[in-house]
């Protein structure tokens, strides 16, 4: 049932090729936020009472909070009453398998290069796709369930695995954690849920593809990954949105729970619509991501390639509670035109002999502002904690900015924390050298940027590394003149 693609449609935007809108029958809740809207979302999702109460509690807390102003980003005040909090492609009936998914939806994901059918047949990647507020399809579910791996949408998890959700939801990012996390806790609509039982090494990459489609809607997804003792999972998320003149809000929460000797590898290729070259439109990406290395010898590794969004505010963090646990953060954040990024990580060393590694590569072009903000904390019991941080910035042109805000707090004398930072510029001399060899300026920039980001790109699962590299090159188009 493979649809032929319209080549013209595929190239709707030269810079941002995912900027199209899918004409699809959508079920939306009216704009605005109040208790009734939350009740309506909960009702639409047929949620149990405890879930509704949890949401309402979060909402009550959110009302008392202030939007943070400390990030190095600037934007007009968000009107939270002007956002649609629930928009879902209307389902005709309960789906039994992928072939029953609305063909219009399948086409959308085909266009995005996420062919659900292809995926099912060809590659060893299980995909959950989330359009606006709901998960529309999950592949490989059956094969995974045979080995005890649960991979489904968050809504399904609330219905089918309430005890697991109850136990872990909010255990790493409490609903009171921060302004956007509280908002998310109140209105989250969907996201992915992964559970890897004891001793199971998940045999395939799990991946979620997020798509914002409806105008005026926000996306508030919630992802929870739990790896029991000795389990392993590699998870990847990708995201795109149509090109619109208005800014759209994306406020997600991701929680990772790693038990004894387990490992979670979480990769993100973030390509939300960044706004046009004049800074109009684009996604506000205000995300809270945190992992808990609760068990001894557990490991959590974040890898992110951030090229999209008008504003990114995001600090995937690891709480190193278990002894000998390991936290890693590998990041490439690229900003062009008027994009602003304030991103980094937090490594909180609590257990003994914990180790963390931070490699951050910021690339700024156009008139963009790119900040690294990172906290490394060694608590008083974190004997022999080790951290190594490396923050490199690359500037293209002279109208952009790169900033580094490292915070280091050590309460244990045996802890060793190292921080290295460099800032470099793609110089005229480098460009000319490349051009003299027959490499045009744009290709040269891509070559240099790829080289700069290599250490992080190498951390991505193979299936996505190539795509991510292309993305870097595309995002820089028009940045050299």
């Amino acid at each position, binding site marked *: 049932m493979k649809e032929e693609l319209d080549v013209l449609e595929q190239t709707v935007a030269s810079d941002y090729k995912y900027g199209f809108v899918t004409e699809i029958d959508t079920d939306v809740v009216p704009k605005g936020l109040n208790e009734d809207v939350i009740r309506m979302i909960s009702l639409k999702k047929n949620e149990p009472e405890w879930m509704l109460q949890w949401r309402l509690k979060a909402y009550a807390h959110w009302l008392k909070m202030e939007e943070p102003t400390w990030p190095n980003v600037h934007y007009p005040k968000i009107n939270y009453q002007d956002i649609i909090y629930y928009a879902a492609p209307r389902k005709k009936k309960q789906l039994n398998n992928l072939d029953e998914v609305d063909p219009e939806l399948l086409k959308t994901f085909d266009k995005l290069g996420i062919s659900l059918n292809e995926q099912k047949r060809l590659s060893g990647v299980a995909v959950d796709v989330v359009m606006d507020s709901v998960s529309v399809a999950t592949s490989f579910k059956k094969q995974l369930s045979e080995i005890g791996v649960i991979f489904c949408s968050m809504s399904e998890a609330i219905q089918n695995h309430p005890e697991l959700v109850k136990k872990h939801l909010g255990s790493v990012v409490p609903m009171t954690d921060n302004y956007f996390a509280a908002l998310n806790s109140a209105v989250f609509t969907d996201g992915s849920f992964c559970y890897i039982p004891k001793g199971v090494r998940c045999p395939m990459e799990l991946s979620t593809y997020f798509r914002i489609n409806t105008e005026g809607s926000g996306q508030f997804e919630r992802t929870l990954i739990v790896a029991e003792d000795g389990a392993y999972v590699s998870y990847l998320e990708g995201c795109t949105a149509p090109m619109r003149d208005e800014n759209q809000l994306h406020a997600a929460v991701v929680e990772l729970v790693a038990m004894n000797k387990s490992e979670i590898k979480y990769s993100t290729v973030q390509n939300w619509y960044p706004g046009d070259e004049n800074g109009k439109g684009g996604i506000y990406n205000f995300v809270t991501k945190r992992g808990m290395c609760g068990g001894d010898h557990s490991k959590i590794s974040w890898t992110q390639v951030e090229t999209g969004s008008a504003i990114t505010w995001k600090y995937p963090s690891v709480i190193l509670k278990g002894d000998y646990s390991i936290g890693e953060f590998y990041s490439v954040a690229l900003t062009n035109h008027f994009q602003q990024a304030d991103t980094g990580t937090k490594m909180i060393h609590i257990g003994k002999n914990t180790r963390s590694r931070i490699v951050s590569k910021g690339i700024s072009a156009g008139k963009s502002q790119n900040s690294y903000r990172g906290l490394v904390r060694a608590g008083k019991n974190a004997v022999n904690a080790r951290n190594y941080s490396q923050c490199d910035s690359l500037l293209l042109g002279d109208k952009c900015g790169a900033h580094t805000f490292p915070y280091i707090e050590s309460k244990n004398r045996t802890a060793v924390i190292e921080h290295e930072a460099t800032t470099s510029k793609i110089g005229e*001399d*480098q460009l000319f050298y*490349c051009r*003299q*060899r027959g490499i*045009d300026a744009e290709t040269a920039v891509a*070559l*240099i940027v790829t080289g*700069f980001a290599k250490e992080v790109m190498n951390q991505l699962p193979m299936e996505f590394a190539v795509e991510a590299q292309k993305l870097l090159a595309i995002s820089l188009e028009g940045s050299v003149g």
Partner: protein
Amino acid sequence: MLSIKNIHASVEEKQILKGIDLEVKAGEVHAIMGPNGSGKSTLASILAGREEYEVTEGSVTFLGEDMLELSPEDRAREGLFLAFQYPVEIPGVSTTNFIKTALNEKRKYHGQEPLDAVSFLKLMKEKMELVEIDKSLLTRSINEGFSGGEKKRNEIFQMAMLEPRLAILDETDSGLDIDALRIVANGVNKLRNDERAIIVITHYQRLLDYLQPDFVHVLVNGRIVKSGTKELALELEEKGYDFIKDELSVTAA
């Protein structure tokens, strides 16, 4: 192959070249000598298309085309190669990857398929032996942490890989010890053929001893003031540039 006519050029409003004429045919090796600040490197930059240099008058024809109309990358793809006096470092980009990209961009320009990995490695091995370059250099980021000699050798290696029609060596001998100079010169000699022209810009006779140029030109104050055969270079080495300057002042008087 290359025809330079009455080239005037300036950088930041300062006139540096004041009317240069030069004809270079395939197979020829020309040496351009001259004191510091005479405009030698400016000439190389003009030919390669550096944008800070403005050509105010004159023309350059390369393989029958108006070269000044071409972008730097297109000049390179047409077969112009400049061995830089100060090759820049590009962190994170391996020499191999860099050369592969350059070679395939050139092939694309000429409507050829990109070279597959096997053929590329084969070609690289062949050229490595030719210019005596160490394999370990090629996996490192281009020019990063290279010694002066390694940088220059890497330039000649790139020249071997890209097989240009016209190569300009801009003070390739500067900063080289005698062994490195010999290796670089041997490499260049092996790359000489009837189809390829080479312009060597240098201060010293040393390199020319190895290269044995067909013609020697002396550039002083933005003009070629004397042209001759390789004996001219020997004379310069012996008497210094002053003798030419003296000759000039006599003529002027």
